[in-house]
């Protein structure tokens, strides 16, 4: 017979597929390790991306924030006179307006303890903080990502708030709850003062999704403040240079103008170490799983050294045998990784993750799924290559006699 292939002749894939069921315990360990790694990678990737996307997407191109001079890095520490937005509106042309409404949103950003009425109060020093934003209706003009999805806006002087979808989920408040009459509306305690929740804002993927909004006048009273945090302005004709010039001209206001997307991009940089920490934690667990896999596969392949030698006697090249062992490992990992991907998609997608004062909604998107698949594949390949190559080092005649006395 002269038809032996000159090129690479792989072992049939069914050989690898059948072998994964050879040791149920090893399959369980490998699949479990694969599932753990994939779930962690998808989870950490979704968290990192949600955090990054949430912060970055919170800035709207064309928006400028007027904040207190010296507080350009944190709007929550910023203080500007409550009169500043009005002075600005009168002084600058080129601010966007529609139907007589100017796109200027005076805002007060305050992290405050917030919990559902009836929920147990946090013990000790722990506080369940949420970012409460005091706004006027113009906030919806300058933040087009936010849309009232259910209920109505909060009335001033009535101790009412609206909440972002992710915060609503955390508080177990649904659309139906805010469609009730005033008496039946859900109540939350902000700094231990009851407030009715009148509506839910949809702002998917941005920081607003985890915030509570209330009339700015109410928040000023609640916090006993006379200054606001910032004024957010949408420009149409003017540019940031005009606002910087205004800020310089009105030194009495002690304000600074910053580009809103740039502010949030800078904020994203602030969270970079946290994102790295999440990634490194996932990597360490993945490495642990990989080392465990290496150990299990080393023993598994060594116990089959005679069979592996036999395959070479049949004429299969070392490369073909190594490929088959790697296929076997990848298939074993896949038995855990694929269900883990599905579970991650079902369990994590849309889940709100509390971070600092914000809540970010996880999105298990194509990139997260691809990262999970890549991690599973890497675990299968890198975890099996060293033991497979080590197995090939034994000379065939010695391997054929393995375990024989």
């Amino acid at each position, binding site marked *: 017979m002269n038809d032996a292939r000159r090129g690479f002749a792989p072992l049939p894939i069914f050989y690898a597929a059948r072998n994964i069921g050879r040791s149920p315990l090893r399959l369980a360990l490998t699949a479990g390790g694969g599932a753990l790694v994939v779930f962690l990678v998808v989870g950490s990737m979704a968290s990192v991306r949600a955090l990054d996307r949430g912060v970055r997407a919170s800035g709207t191109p064309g928006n400028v924030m007027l904040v207190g001079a010296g507080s350009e890095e944190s709007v929550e520490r910023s203080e500007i006179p409550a009169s500043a937005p009005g002075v600005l509106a009168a002084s600058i042309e080129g601010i966007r307006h529609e139907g007589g409404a100017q796109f200027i949103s005076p805002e007060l950003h305050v992290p405050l303890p917030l919990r559902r009425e009836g929920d147990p109060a946090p013990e000790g020093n722990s506080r369940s903080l949420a970012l409460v934003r005091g706004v006027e209706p113009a906030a919806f003009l300058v933040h087009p990502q936010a849309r009232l999805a259910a209920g109505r806006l909060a009335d001033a002087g009535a101790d009412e708030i609206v909440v972002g979808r992710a915060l609503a989920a955390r508080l177990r408040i649904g659309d139906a709850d805010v469609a009730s009459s005033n008496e039946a509306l859900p109540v939350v305690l902000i700094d231990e003062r009851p407030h009715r929740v009148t509506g839910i804002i949809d702002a998917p993927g941005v920081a607003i999704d985890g915030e509570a909004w209330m009339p700015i006048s109410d928040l000023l009273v609640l916090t006993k403040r006379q200054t606001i945090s910032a004024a957010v302005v949408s420009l149409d004709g003017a540019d940031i240079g005009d606002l910087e010039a205004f800020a310089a001209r009105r030194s009495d206001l002690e304000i600074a103008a910053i580009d809103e997307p740039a502010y949030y991009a800078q904020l994203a940089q602030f969270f970079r170490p946290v994102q790295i920490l999440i990634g490194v934690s996932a990597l360490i667990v993945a490495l642990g799983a990989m080392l465990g896999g290496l150990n299990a596969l080393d023993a598994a392949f060594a116990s089959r050294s005679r069979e592996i030698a036999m395959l070479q006697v*049949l004429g299969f*090249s070392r490369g073909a045998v190594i490929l088959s062992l790697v296929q076997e490992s990848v298939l074993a990992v896949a038995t855990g990784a694929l269900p883990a991907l599905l579970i991650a998609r079902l369990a994590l997608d849309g889940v709100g993750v509390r971070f600092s004062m914000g809540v970010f909604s996880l999105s298990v998107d194509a990139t997260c799924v691809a990262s999970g698949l890549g991690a599973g594949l890497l675990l299968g390949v890198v975890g099996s290559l060293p033991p497979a190559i080590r197995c090939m080092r034994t000379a065939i*005649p010695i391997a054929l006699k393995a375990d024989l006395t």
Partner: protein
Amino acid sequence: MATVEPIIRCSSLEKHYERGGETVRVLEKLDLTITRGQFVALMGPSGSGKTTLLNLLAGIDRPTAGGLVVDGQDITTLSRAALAHWRARSVGYIFQLYHLVPVLTAYENVELPLYVHNISRRERHRRVCEALESVSISDRHAHYPSQLSGGQEQRVAIARAIVTQPSLLLADEPTGDLDRASAAGIMELLGRLHREHGQTIVMVTHDPATAVHAQRTVHLDKGRLVEPHGVAS
């Protein structure tokens, strides 16, 4: 029928191992010629070099010195990959312990070596059926090795060795793990393959009762050929 054309030619073949700083001479200056179509039994006491010689003939071990031409090919000069390619084409190997893959059926075990060859699925099926038929195990084609007796497993192993239609069939103690009745059946089968198909067979055995089925017996002792010059009987 056997012809005078040599299929194996060993000239001054040597195999040494280094063990604990000492050189172990397993084969020494071995000259042996086996002609195409012969059924040869390699006999000798333990450690005489029988299996080492068989491994050299199969190209799964390399000689320390000397010449070795098998089926017209000087296999001492081949690379590892070329040797695997040559082995797939020219050699069928029967192991004492069968070495069937436990997770594959008898059919799939026999089919396995055909994946090295560039042949169609239909042709693979034809050859596997033919091989299983020739070892009288067709009715067990869907059985896994654990569902077969030792004799049946060895029949499957023989089918796997002959399915590629190799020039040379090498058998290492093929009846060493079988009861008397099964061993007799296997030897009858190898004898039939030799008689009916002119198959060249080199078989290692330490059992004279097994060796009588061979056409020629070659004795090894301490790595040397006892039969003068390895001349065909």
